């Protein structure tokens, strides 16, 4: 039996340590991992638990991230709980196996500490890696701070391992701003956390020889399509399981999570939609503008990036007073509008209010996003609202040096 870890009611943890503590409490059978900044401390933290008897599973330090995810798939098919962590280039190297893991319906949990993708090489936080995963068939949940990184990691096991879901889950947090920023975190006792997560239930267990199983079969045009459609359905249907797990977690801890967090939207005239640690910045900016200038600003933050919560985003934006919405994407858009803009616009199109939609790219490679900049963007939305049409290019870049960049003009005036 693994030793119990003595925890105080309040601990001072950064996002990495919070995530590693959640992994420890889940009593994972196999962790297969490879270090990369800024998620390395999660793997190191786990290594320390192994070395000191706080976990009794196997810790496999593989030779690459592709190997890490391959190892997770092999181990998960052998009927136990599996987890890993990565960032950026490591995430990119895993990509092939991410699709295989979800296609094989293996509930692996992976903490992704978001970081920019090279080139140029950059260790700071942006959402390029998170966006790279968006079609991989994984559930993607975003923590905005260290407490959430801990809480949601516990929830992730429950969600992915649920018998109606059986899909892998990514737990995202922002590199450095969350992963390396210490804050007060309220942990659960080991026994309570484990009881919440529950025992692992094997499905199609390779170590159950009374029922031999074939994992990772070949399908061509005859069956591939049905498999993929079924996988998509499982992902879409996981929304209710996520809601249920969040409800249980609230009952246990009092801390409430939703697939979409929304702030001050009831009477909002303009809104910002964004992800990650910048949400707190945007909420602060909105509060200040409400106080200082009486500007009715709201903030919407999809906590679930996949399955994308079209239902709840639409609910959040279906406010009759709402005129202009700006979606902020922290990933180089690569010749398109930002992904968040595209998803949110799709949801907003079927609201009654049909607000004007604009897009900002921001924070690439860890470029700071401060309250003043959030306020400036909010005021710009107000200008659109007052003019009755979008007064700028639809896509712009925030906090960029050099000449202003903008693309695509509206025809709705």
């Amino acid at each position, binding site marked *: 039996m693994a030793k119990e870890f003595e925890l105080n009611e309040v601990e001072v943890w950064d996002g990495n340590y919070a995530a590693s503590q959640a992994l420890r409490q889940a009593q994972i*059978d*196999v962790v*297969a991992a490879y270090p990369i900044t800024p998620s390395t401390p999660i793997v190191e933290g786990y290594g320390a638990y192994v070395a000191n008897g706080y976990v*009794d*599973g*196997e810790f*496999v*330090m*593989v*030779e*690459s991230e*592709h*190997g890490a995810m*391959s*190892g*997770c*798939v*092999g*181990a*998960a*098919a*052998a*009927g*136990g709980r*599996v987890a890993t962590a990565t960032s950026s280039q490591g995430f990119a190297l895993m990509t*092939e*196996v991410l699709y*295989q893991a979800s296609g*094989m319906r293996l509930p692996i949990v992976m903490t992704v500490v978001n970081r920019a993708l090279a080139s140029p090489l950059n260790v700071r936080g942006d959402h390029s890696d998170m966006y790279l995963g968006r079609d991989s068939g994984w559930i993607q949940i975003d923590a905005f701070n260290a407490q959430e990184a801990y809480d949601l990691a516990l929830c992730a096991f429950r969600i992915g391992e649920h018998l109606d879901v059986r899909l892998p889950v990514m737990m995202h947090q922002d590199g450095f701003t969350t992963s390396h920023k210490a804050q007060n975190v309220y942990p659960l006792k080991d026994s309570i956390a484990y009881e919440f997560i529950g025992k*692992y239930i094997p499905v199609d*267990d*390779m*170590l*159950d*020889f*009374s029922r*031999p*199983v*074939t*994992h*990772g*079969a*070949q*399908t061509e045009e005859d*069956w591939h399509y049905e*498999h993929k459609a079924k996988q998509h359905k499982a992902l879409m249907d996981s929304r209710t399981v996520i809601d249920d797990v969040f409800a249980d977690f609230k009952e246990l801890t009092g801390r409430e999570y939703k697939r979409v967090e929304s702030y001050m939207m009831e009477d909002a005239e303009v809104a910002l939609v964004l992800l990650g640690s910048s949400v707190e910045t945007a909420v602060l900016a909105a509060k200040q503008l409400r106080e200082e200038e009486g500007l009715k600003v709201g903030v919407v933050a999809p906590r679930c990036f996949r399955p994308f919560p079209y239902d709840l985003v639409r609910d959040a934006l279906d406010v009759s007073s709402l005129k202009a919405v700006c979606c902020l994407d922290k990933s180089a858009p690569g010749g398109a509008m930002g992904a968040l803009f595209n998803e949110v616009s799709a949801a907003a199109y079927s609201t009654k209010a049909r607000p004007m939609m604009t897009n900002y790219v921001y924070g690439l490679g860890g470029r700071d996003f401060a309250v003043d900049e959030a306020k400036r963007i909010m005021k710009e939305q107000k200008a659109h609202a007052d003019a009755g049409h979008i007064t700028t290019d639809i896509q712009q870049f925030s906090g960029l040096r050099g000449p202003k960049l903008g693309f695509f003009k509206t025809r709705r005036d």
Partner: protein
Amino acid sequence: MAITSIKNLKEFSTNNDRFEGAHLLCPGCAHSMIVRELMNCTDDNLVIASNTGCLEVSTAVYPYTSWDTSWIHIGFENAATAASCAEAMYKARKKKGTLPDADAPVKFVAFGGDGSTYDIGFQWLSGAMERGHDFTYICLDNENYANTGGQRSSATPVGAHTSTAQAGSHSYGKKQKKKDMVAIMAAHGAPYVAQLAPNKWKSMAKGFQKALETEGPCFINTVSACTTEWKFDPKDTIHITDLATDSLMFPVYEIIDGHELNILYRPKNIIKVEDYLGSQGRYRHLFKPQNKHIIERIQKDIDEKWALLQRREEARI
């Protein structure tokens, strides 16, 4: 427990039928012979991982499977990782008491073609060997990427024609030497490494048994004659393999603990490599006058390798 009696081929070949005859491999493909020998040489439960390649695409086409045991395929390069981490899971569950049958012995085996073993999966294999998992990796070496229509691999021998190292008016086929994977695996400090051939089925079965019984990561390179890409009549698979082992193109030997080398088959009459090369369409062009020196070079390489293996066997280094 491994099966100890392997006196009779007929008995052996039907023992423990866990690999169904129904599959899509070409008639005469040696892959299935090798797989059957592995599965018949032990009574232990087997977890098998396969890399992408002919074996995988031919034996697990949904909704069918040829595998009457636990089997997994992830991608082209990572069967060694799948098997080794399934083994890690076995250990974890054994410790925690969550195995369905804690007492039944289990063996972990990965199969890869030469493409996945020598080329794209090299790193994954090396990593799994270094980590010391208790598993056996078996390479089905047909010296080309057969599944994708016969491209070169780093296991393709000098002079062979493949679709990406073609023989033509300006080329005699592949120019580079075959990678010595057995030596590389032995250099990993693996406790058991061997090169085996399915025509020498007794030594192959014994080698497999040794690998399965040896604790730690074991590697076996098996010669797997490919009727389609080597271009010979499907009924001649074993005959071609005889020529391969009798010409010493494929010497049969093992290396224990990285240094103790034992030759497992010593042909009574060593045949000229010409006889081996002449049996297959992929070497036909070598018999043109301008390519004669290539055959000489191949023979020289074989002679030197054989001398080296014998010296190593004697010297125990």
